């Protein structure tokens, strides 16, 4: 067993990732600590923790961003290390520094690396200066006065992003340059609200690109390895919906090239811990998009094909241990697919949903993993991100992985709150998706998948019968019809 200089790890997160991190923390013999917000009620993570403190804030999200309150909770529980999960404070260099200043171990890259990669403008400059591939762009920092003009010069379509942003928040595509000024104003306002920084960044929007990212891992002794790529091209409004590994688009030569570039970028910034280098790819090649200095939501697909536990690797690196394997030791086996279960209603333009989790029955079967953030009997609220759970499957090849994913999605029972489960299945059964012909605009180009299939008459009859006989008030009304009247004809109106 590995020695750790810390005996306990506080997870500063919630939902499925809090439970997922705690599972590994405990498996390694460490104490698992947690902060939680009362709005979440009982959660899978709570059942896996040795101690917990409730955090409060003006909004539930604000509670998870309140550094002084979180550090006070950490001290109270005797936390010796902090794992930030993803989102919230995971890419906040100030928090990473505060954790280290408080004498605790920060499970993540150096604060300077978070700062460098968190500033999209600096990150691009850093990557570009070292000869790695970049898409044409304009940044507001260079000369704010001429920014709109330089953005216009890139030509339509254009993608506007907050310089301080990430995760797709506040991004806008401009197709009609006549609307550029309006779009700039709106993007600035959103950037200011989400990130407290209204500066923008514009780049040429590549139509129908693929999103391919590479998982990397670095230790404190200078070693960096890549753990192959993931393709995350199935996105809706820049939010990933389905991810897979390996990418069906890459030849072995292209795979080796993109993975080597990612590892090169990680090496250049002396990366420590788990990180992801994201690229966009079109028929002309691939370009650096950004580097995420945290564990990604979709890390399980990499775990499935490599057999590694990325959280365990993060903990070992944070403990100062050298990586226990070299690049040559990293093997790739089969194909993995992750589908994100969101509380949203595809039939209502994916509007967020909320409600009680009346029933939750995870799928079972070979190669199936289900990481859930909610429990049956609790409620889904709209205070946080809409992701409820992740379904991850592994198969010998892509065809088997697709089959296992659709079977598992049909076995997954979630009642009480509308979700995208049926939509995910329709997506995985789509002929272009099955053939691997995917790009980041595919979901937007196929709105019919969200409408769902019309009900077969027999299915409808079964539903009506089951609903009517299950509702006491309806069954009572049916029972009240005199049998003689019933004999004369069915009750209709």
């Amino acid at each position, binding site marked *: 067993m590995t020695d750790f200089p810390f005996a306990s790890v506080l997870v500063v997160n919630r939902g499925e990732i809090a439970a997922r991190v705690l599972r590994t923390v405990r498996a390694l013999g460490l104490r698992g600590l947690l902060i939680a917000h009362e709005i979440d009620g009982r959660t899978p993570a709570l059942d896996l923790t040795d101690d917990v403190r409730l955090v409060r804030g*003006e*909004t539930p999200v604000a509670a998870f961003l309140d550094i002084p309150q979180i550090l006070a909770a950490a001290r109270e529980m005797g936390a010796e290390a902090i794992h930030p999960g993803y989102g919230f404070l995971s890419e906040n260099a100030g928090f990473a520094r505060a954790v280290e200043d408080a004498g605790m171990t920060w499970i993540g890259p150096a604060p300077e690396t978070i700062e460098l990669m968190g500033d999209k403008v600096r990150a691009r400059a850093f990557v570009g200066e070292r000869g790695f591939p970049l898409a044409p762009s304009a940044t507001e920092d260079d000369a704010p006065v001429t920014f709109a003009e330089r953005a216009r010069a890139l030509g339509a379509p254009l993608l506007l992003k907050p310089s301080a942003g990430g995760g797709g*928040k506040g991004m806008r595509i401009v197709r009609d340059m006549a609307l550029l000024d309006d779009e700039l104003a709106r993007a600035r306002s*959103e950037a200011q*609200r*989400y990130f407290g920084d209204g500066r923008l960044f514009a780049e040429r929007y590549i139509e129908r690109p693929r999103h391919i990212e590479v998982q990397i891992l670095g230790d404190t002794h200078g070693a960096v390895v890549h753990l192959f790529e993931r393709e995350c091209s199935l996105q809706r*409004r820049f*939010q990933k919906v389905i991810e897979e590994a390996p990418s069906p688009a890459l030849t072995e030569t292209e795979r080796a090239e993109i993975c080597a570039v990612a590892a090169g970028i990680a090496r250049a910034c002396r990366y420590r811990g788990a990180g992801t280098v994201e690229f966009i790819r079109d028929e002309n090649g691939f370009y650096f998009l950004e580097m995420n200095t945290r564990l990604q939501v979709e890390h399980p697909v990499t775990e499935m094909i490599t057999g590694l536990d990325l959280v365990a690797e993060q903990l070992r690196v944070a403990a100062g241990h050298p990586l226990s394997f070299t690049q040559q030791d990293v093997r790739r086996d089969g194909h993995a697919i992750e589908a994100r279960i969101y509380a949203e209603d595809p*039939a*209502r333009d994916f*509007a*967020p*949903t*909320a409600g*009680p989790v*009346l*029933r939750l029955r995870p799928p079972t079967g070979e190669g199936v993993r289900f990481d859930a953030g909610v429990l049956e009997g609790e409620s889904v609220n*709209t205070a946080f*991100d*809409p992701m409820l759970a992740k379904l991850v499957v592994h198969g010998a090849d892509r065809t088997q992985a697709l089959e296992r994913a659709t079977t598992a999605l*049909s076995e997954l*029972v*979630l*009642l*009480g709150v*509308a979700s995208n*489960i*049926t939509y995910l*299945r329709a997506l995985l059964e789509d002929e272009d998706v099955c053939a691997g012909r995917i790009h980041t605009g595919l979901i937007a180009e196929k709105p019919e998948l969200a409408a*769902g299939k019309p*009900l077969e008459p*027999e*299915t*409808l*009859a*079964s*539903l*009506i*019968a*089951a*609903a*009517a*006989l*299950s*509702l*006491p*008030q*309806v069954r009572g*009304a*049916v029972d*009240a*019809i005199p*049998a003689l*009247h*019933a*004999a004369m004809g*069915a*009750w*209709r*109106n």
Partner: protein
Amino acid sequence: MQGYLIIGEEAHALAICPAMGGGYRLADGAPLTLRESGGRMRIQVGETVREAEIVVAGETVWIHLEGVAYEITWRSAVERLARSADGEADGAVHAPMPGAVVKVLVQPGDVVRAGDVVMVIESMKLETTLRAPRPGVVGHGRLAVGESFERGAMLIEIGEGG
């Protein structure tokens, strides 16, 4: 008491009655049964038998049937009529999704035209602008910036006049 079962956007008139000699049948005479078997429900309509998971919550039944979850709501005929009449007369701005108020652009007493932006809301990561559904005078606001609401909640009343 007559009524409808609402599935998605569609209302289906109830067409079930007791069968002679016990049990139930559909309008076309097909016999129906619903019974529990090992934690799951067996639905039989005529010759067809299907297995489902069913949970009842108030006037709503959730059914997981052949890999798909359905939300089915019971609405009596009277109630359905009342709701549709209410919907037509009601000029208010309703929440298209659950979320929180980002900005209120009108004050009580303001005169608005149909299509004027009256409020900006946020749900998850998206901002949405809400517009007045008809011309009129803005009534009393119910929510302040930062407050959250459920889908369908009345956000701003728009009265006659102006």
